């Protein structure tokens, strides 16, 4: 019946989440989603600069980068990758709970995401502490005396060592890239803390859960950055 349809639509317009300059909820949602994707495109450019710097110096100081990369703990890197992938799943389950209107399930998955984010940051902090202990942090106290990859098989007098200045460049990029990623993680954890509180207060419904969805996009993007950082920083020249 067309008349009842009109009544339903007018009720929809009274949804407090619908701002007056949008005609429908789906239009508002699409605009918010497009804005989020444009923000993420800008983030691609931002991290792209770091990846480009990495690529240039990896090409220039190829073997030294391999040597410095082997100072990282591949197990911790792999565990952190698994932790982030699991956190992406909890985000997906959170968005699903929001779509289905399950309030406590949404709060649970958001808190689970925060927990996994904190596990990631804890492991990262442990790795950073080890770098400080070994004087592998670029700066006045930087000290590096390690073999180039694959030199262990030669007699001691013929072994070649990595250029410490080139290794320092690797660690500069390591701290810049993982540090910038960790900063994004910290912002994400804060964001999800806010969302968990608002979700607990019942702000999100199947009609309005845009903040959950867009924060989820942000979290997945940060996961994707780590998906590239892990092989580039941890896995190079391991076979030598």
């Amino acid at each position, binding site marked *: 019946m067309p008349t009842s349809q009109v009544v339903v639509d007018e009720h929809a317009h009274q949804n407090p989440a619908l701002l007056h300059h949008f005609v429908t909820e789906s239009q508002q949602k*699409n605009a918010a989603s497009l804005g989020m994707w444009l923000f993420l495109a800008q983030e691609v450019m931002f991290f792209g600069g770091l990846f480009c710097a990495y690529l*240039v110096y990896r090409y220039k100081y190829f073997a030294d980068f391999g040597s410095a990369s082997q100072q990282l703990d591949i197990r911790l890197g792999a565990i952190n990758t698994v932790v982030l*992938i699991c956190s992406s799943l909890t985000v997906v389950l959170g968005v699903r709970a929001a779509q289905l209107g399950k309030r406590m399930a949404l709060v649970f998955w958001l808190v689970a995401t925060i927990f996994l984010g904190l596990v990631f940051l804890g492991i990262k902090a442990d790795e950073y502490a080890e770098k400080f202990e070994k004087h592998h942090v670029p700066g006045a106290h930087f000290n590096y005396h390690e073999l180039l990859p694959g030199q262990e098989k030669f007699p001691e007098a013929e072994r070649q060592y990595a250029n410490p200045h080139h290794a320092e460049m690797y660690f500069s990029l390591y701290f810049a890239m993982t540090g910038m990623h960790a900063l994004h993680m910290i912002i994400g954890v804060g964001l999800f803390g806010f969302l968990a509180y608002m979700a607990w207060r019942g702000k999100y419904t199947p009609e309005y859960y845009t903040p959950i969805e867009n924060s989820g996009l942000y979290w997945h993007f940060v996961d*994707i950055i780590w998906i590239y950082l892990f092989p580039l920083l941890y896995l*190079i020249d391991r*076979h030598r």
Partner: protein
Amino acid sequence: MSDHNSASEHDSEHISPLGSSVAIWLALLLCTGITVGAAFIDLGPFNTIVALTIATIKATLVVLFFMHVKYTHEKLTGLVIVSAGFFLFILLALSMADYTTRLWR
């Protein structure tokens, strides 16, 4: 699935089935295992290529399924993603075209 996506009022909404999300999660974990294993096998110059290919497969799975791009009807989202990738490609490709051909250094 397909009738769920077809022109309903809520065309921007897609509730991902639990099973497929878990399947993508398992695929991502499997890819992580493969990439760690492959790093210890000597493939010559292909080590980097394999690692980055697996990373790109993982990123694509996350974008398509976890970020719901596969289910969206909004063409602008695709445009934004393709442009981001395209300009990243320009940044990396032209920079490397410069640095790898400086034969006088």
